[in-house]
């Protein structure tokens, strides 16, 4: 088998803060294949963004301690010097951020912001770079890319801006795109447009995609493989169908049962009790244990490791599989929160 496009091995990221060491990512491993989408879900603060910012060495310099390996086509990016990393960013890995308004420089024309990448990495002339920028804009479905290229970000709508950011990420035809919550700030109908576009890029160009989101629904509609993060750790990892049809970790199960969807009418949701732990002093055992309905003695003392359930499906849980499953049906309405 060939080397995967991106492989993260045992990544840990720690921040030193005045209040203590924040262990934002702990021993995270995952793989992204070409032409596939890795979905990353987890609640706010679970370390999704930090993981991939670390991969691109975009965390504030000096603040973070990073361990582990980030292998792009087998090459460890973490050993690269900062200057060499620049050659990777933008050229080989494109990044799409959450907030389309603030992710674009407000004082520069969008065309120039795209062309800049071409000029920096490909050393293209001004005119050529501009032409490529316009082409990229066209390829993400922006009508009248010529005029749009000469406009400033604030003259574009939110969806349009997000397209610009995508155009920026793909203009040099990277191998990998990391999209960190690309649709959170967008309206439902626009979100559909953007997800469609990312999907299309993956299929048409065979790019590997990492899609970070806190919305299970979003991930479920586009991801091929999914990792579920909790408090900086991967708790479950498998194909999309594994995770969504047959979730094995109580946390994933809890997440799925908390979501109100249009398929269900009024009725009680089954939320996960409590709230995420502080990353400064994580509980000794499983970090989810205090909130886990299925927890057993061992959970509070021992730390679970990722264990394979099927060849494509791993989770980190100490509870015997048979004792874990809770379904909405098993929880009577009217409890949960109280």
């Amino acid at each position, binding site marked *: 088998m060939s080397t995967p496009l991106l492989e993260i091995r045992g990544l840990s990221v720690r921040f030193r803060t005045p209040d203590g060491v924040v262990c934002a990512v702990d021993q995270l491993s995952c793989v992204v294949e070409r032409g596939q989408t890795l979905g990353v879900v987890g609640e706010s*603060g679970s370390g999704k963004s930090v993981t991939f910012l670390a991969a691109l060495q975009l965390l504030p310099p000096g603040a973070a301690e990073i361990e582990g390996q980030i292998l792009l086509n087998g090459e460890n990016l973490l050993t690269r010097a900062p200057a060499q990393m620049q050659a990777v960013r933008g050229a080989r890995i494109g990044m799409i951020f959450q907030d389309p308004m603030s992710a674009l420089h407000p004082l520069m024309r969008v065309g120039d912001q795209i062309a800049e990448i071409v000029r920096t990495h490909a050393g293209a002339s001004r005119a050529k770079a501009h032409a490529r920028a316009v082409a990229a804009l066209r390829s993400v479905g922006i009508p009248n890319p010529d005029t749009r290229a000469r406009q400033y970000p604030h003259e574009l709508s939110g969806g349009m801006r997000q397209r610009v950011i995508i155009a920026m990420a793909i203009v040099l035809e990277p191998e990998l795109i990391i999209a960190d919550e690309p649709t959170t700030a967008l309206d439902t109908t626009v979100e559909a447009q953007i997800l469609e576009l990312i999907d299309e890029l993956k299929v048409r160009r065979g790019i590997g995609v990492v899609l970070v989101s806190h919305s299970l629904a979003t991930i479920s509609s586009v991801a091929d493989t999914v990792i579920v993060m909790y408090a900086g750790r991967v708790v479950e990892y498998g194909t999309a169908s594994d995770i969504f049809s047959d979730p094995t970790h109580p946390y994933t199960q809890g997440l799925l049962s908390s979501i109100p969807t249009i398929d269900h009418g009024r009725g009680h949701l089954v939320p996960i009790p*409590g*709230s995420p732990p*502080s990353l400064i002093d994580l509980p000794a055992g499983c970090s989810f244990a*205090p909130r886990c309905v299925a927890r057993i003695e061992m959970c509070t003392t021992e730390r679970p490791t990722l264990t394979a359930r099927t060849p494509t499906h791993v989770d980190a849980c100490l509870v015997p599989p048979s004792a874990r499953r809770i379904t909405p049906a098993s929880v009577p309405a009217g409890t949960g*929160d109280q």
Partner: protein
Amino acid sequence: MDQVATLGVTRPRARSPRASFWAKFTAQPATVIALVFLAVLILAAIAAPLIASLVGHGPNDLYRTQMLDGFGLPRGPNGSFWFGADSAGRDVFIRVIYGARVSLVVGVVATGIAVVIGVTLGLIAGYRGGIVDTLLSRFADVMLAMPLLLFAIGISTACSTTSAGCLRGTLTPGLNLVIVIIAVFTWPAMFRIVRATTLSLRETDFVEASRAIGQTEFSIMRSEVLPNLISPIVVYSALLVPQSILFEAYLTFLGLGIPDSTPSWGGMLDQASQLFSVAWWLMVFPGLFLLATVLAFNLIGDGLRDALDPKTPRRTTRKRAA
């Protein structure tokens, strides 16, 4: 029982706001030094008569035979006149100590008045908006466009020419007048800040919420908006104090401020400006004290800003992007 409670809120319990404020505020050694310096200065200013009686020189006692030469020029520092004498033959050391009184009083009182005016009007303008806002803002603009010095000269001269002062004796020249002049010309700065902050506070949901509850506008202004203005007000006031102190020094330097019989640093420097080539001490000592005092207030202002600004690091929670 509430599960949330039993499971424990795992987010770190923040330190009490006051404790964390002090911790941040005193984190910088410079701020602490500034505080100590000011404390000493305030004590010295309060104890000025005591110091004067210990040294044996009053602030307006003349030692012209000892400390002036045949041309009426002052003599420099010596064992009993640590900072030398001024051109009237007075002890510069004692006058510098007394000068602290003027600077501190002007700094604090003028700022206080400016803050009261600026906050009141800024709050009204920002909260009421509309024509009230337009009028008040324009008024502040005009005040800022006024050639300040000119009016300082005009007002201080006009109020100096009768024994009663002006405004039926409420405004007598000297300290009072200087304070009023400074306050009159610094309130617009405070006004602008308060107005801008109020404008944005007015749009916040919690103000809206108070309105939805049925709270009256006045009470919203007083008890919802005003408390949230405290940190900009405190920070900005701390920065206005040194400005006011300098302003007094400038006015007195230009001969428009405090009468000579009240020792003030600006007045001493005014004298020094004529004599610096022969009497460096006249320039150096009051100047250093002025610099140190202003610097101390600036450092404290900075410290306050850092301590009250949520943006300074020491925050552990991150705001979730909406």
